[in-house]
């Protein structure tokens, strides 16, 4: 089932949705990625029909459902806090939608058992929601949404606050369902790792506006603006001025240091541009890399140990601070003490031009 959100606008309190346009194809796992307060939940509730949009249309599998009541949209919904009905057992919760549809007892029993078994919850069917762990509660909420075989499933941060094992079980289940049943999913999250590991398509949203839509690879390799770049992990963002170009590259002056980047189509000499470089695409060494187009001298200013990864802060000669991500073993072997003089290098292909010819986007 495909879902189309066409030019939806909604204003409510501090958050508003602005001209939201999404196309979720049949059987697609679509992730809406954005920070807290971006309007993600509001958009889900608008698609569900709980909130009424000020303008725009919502089309599900070719049928305009803009004015269709929530209960007739055939949309499954898993809220962030699970919200199992506390006065019903897990089984009664999962059966709820089937009872409403007057499904026969035998069929209801079979379908409920099937979905509970798939999620490893059959043994907990007669338990009270109050007696479940967070992960079990979320699985039960997912089972309740899936058992009615919805046309599309909306998931509001379903994996947040979950232990890694349960998160992996649910990820596997969701991907399997997508593959087996061809169910379309719209999954909302603020976690970029979750988004990139699950999605066929990702839309980044901020302040009620879709900032970029594309496949994970497209978004990862070509972030459209500074917000997207920062959100998906580009930690080194610089504003600079293109100076001259040759061999398909352009030299950008970022306050004294020159960085060579692929020439952007809209970029010309004299215009301002914003560049982004991922910390894990920068190499660090004690001597300059003569082969590299971008090799800058600097001093180790500090580092943060993050388990398997260590982020090293290097102050280059012009005063700019550049973050370099190293594997912990490489960091230990390199002996990068504070104050040590080092060289950092990176390929021009690692430099993404986030905006050109205008002020940096927010």
């Amino acid at each position: 089932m495909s879902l189309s959100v066409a030019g939806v606008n909604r204003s409510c309190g501090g958050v508003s949705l602005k001209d939201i346009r999404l196309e979720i194809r049949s059987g697609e796992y679509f992730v809406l990625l954005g920070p807290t307060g971006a309007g993600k939940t509001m958009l889900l509730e608008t698609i569900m029909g709980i909130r009424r949009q000020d303008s725009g249309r919502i089309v599900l599998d070719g049928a305009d459902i803009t004015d269709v009541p929530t209960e007739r949209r055939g949309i499954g919904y898993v809220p962030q806090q699970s919200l199992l009905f506390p006065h019903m057992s897990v089984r009664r919760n999962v059966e709820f939608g089937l009872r409403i549809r007057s499904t026969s007892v035998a069929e209801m029993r079979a379908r409920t058992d099937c979905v509970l078994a798939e999620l490893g919850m059959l043994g907990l069917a007669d338990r009270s929601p109050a007696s479940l762990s967070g992960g079990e509660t979320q699985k039960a909420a997912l089972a309740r949404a899936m058992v009615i075989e919805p046309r599309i499933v909306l998931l509001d941060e379903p994996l947040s606050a979950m232990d890694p094992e349960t998160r992996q079980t649910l990820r596997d289940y969701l991907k399997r369902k997508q593959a087996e049943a061809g169910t379309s999913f719209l999954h909302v999250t603020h976690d970029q790792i979750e988004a990139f590991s699950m999605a066929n398509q990702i839309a980044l949203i901020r302040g009620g506006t879709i900032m970029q839509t594309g496949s994970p690879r497209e978004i990862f390799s070509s972030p459209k603006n500074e917000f997207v770049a920062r959100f998906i992990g580009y930690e080194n963002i610089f504003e600079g001025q293109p100076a001259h170009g040759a061999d398909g590259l352009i030299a950008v002056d970022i306050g004294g240091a020159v960085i060579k980047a692929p020439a952007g189509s809209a970029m010309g000499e004299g215009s301002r541009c914003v560049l982004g470089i991922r910390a894990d695409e920068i190499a660090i060494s004690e001597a300059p890399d003569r082969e590299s187009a971008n090799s800058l001298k600097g001093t180790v200013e500090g580092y943060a140990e993050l388990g398997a990864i260590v982020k090293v802060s290097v102050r280059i000669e012009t005063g700019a601070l550049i973050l370099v991500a190293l594997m912990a073993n490489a960091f230990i072997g390199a002996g990068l003490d504070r104050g040590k003089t080092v060289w950092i290098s990176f390929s021009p292909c690692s430099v993404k031009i986030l905006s050109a010819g205008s002020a940096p986007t927010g």
Partner: protein
Amino acid sequence: MSWLRTRSPFIIASAVLGAGMVIFLMLPIASSIFGSASGIPGALEDAGTRNAIITSLYCAFLATLFTMVLGVPLAYVFARYSFAGKGFIEPLIDLPILIPHNAAGIALLMVLTPNSVIGSFFDKMGIRFVDSVMGIVVAMAFVSAPFMIRSAQDAFISVNPAMEHVARSLGASELQVFRHVSFPLAARGVLTGCLLTWARSISEFGAVVILAYYPITAPIDLYDTFVTEGLSRALPINGLLILIAVAILIIFSRLLTRQSRFLKPVEGRA
């Protein structure tokens, strides 16, 4: 003494003042029961008193039913929706608690007397409010409805609206959501409202005495006996009514506890 040494002066002062309040509330009740204990069986043998008590219990039950049928939907609307005039209408619900109850009785009499438009309308259908069971029920419902509405409203507010949204996404209509989710989750609050309404109705005197002196209810019987036969004859009836109130209180507590247990579904892991 060791208790005193281990507690702060604030806690000790609170305990002393609290004890004063308990004595203030319990002393008149205890003295009424124990001062007339020997006469209570005799009061119970009196057919007039027995009928008055039965009338009070019965009419209070009908008044509770009436306020539940009209009050619970209103409470749900207040809890869930905003509409023009809500800010004006909502505080008015508490008015029957604030106005003197004999004034409430007069207000009802003005509306429901057979000479009024509404009263004559019902009169044509054979329904009379003055000096009738119907009048007692209406008077009781009028003064006790706020207890039902507020209890139910608080109960519905405590139900997470997102849970209702989930139920709707599963295919339930608004009525089905109310029936299967909102009402069961608010049931404890609604039951509390019913019990409060019933208890308040049983004790109602002011509004009932104006609108429907007859058939005589328990509070009117007590007042009647006190005025016509004196304190000594009224004391056993007084003791009996207080004993009934104590019994009702105990039953209510038990019911609420049982209902709370009922709301916890099936066995579960701690």
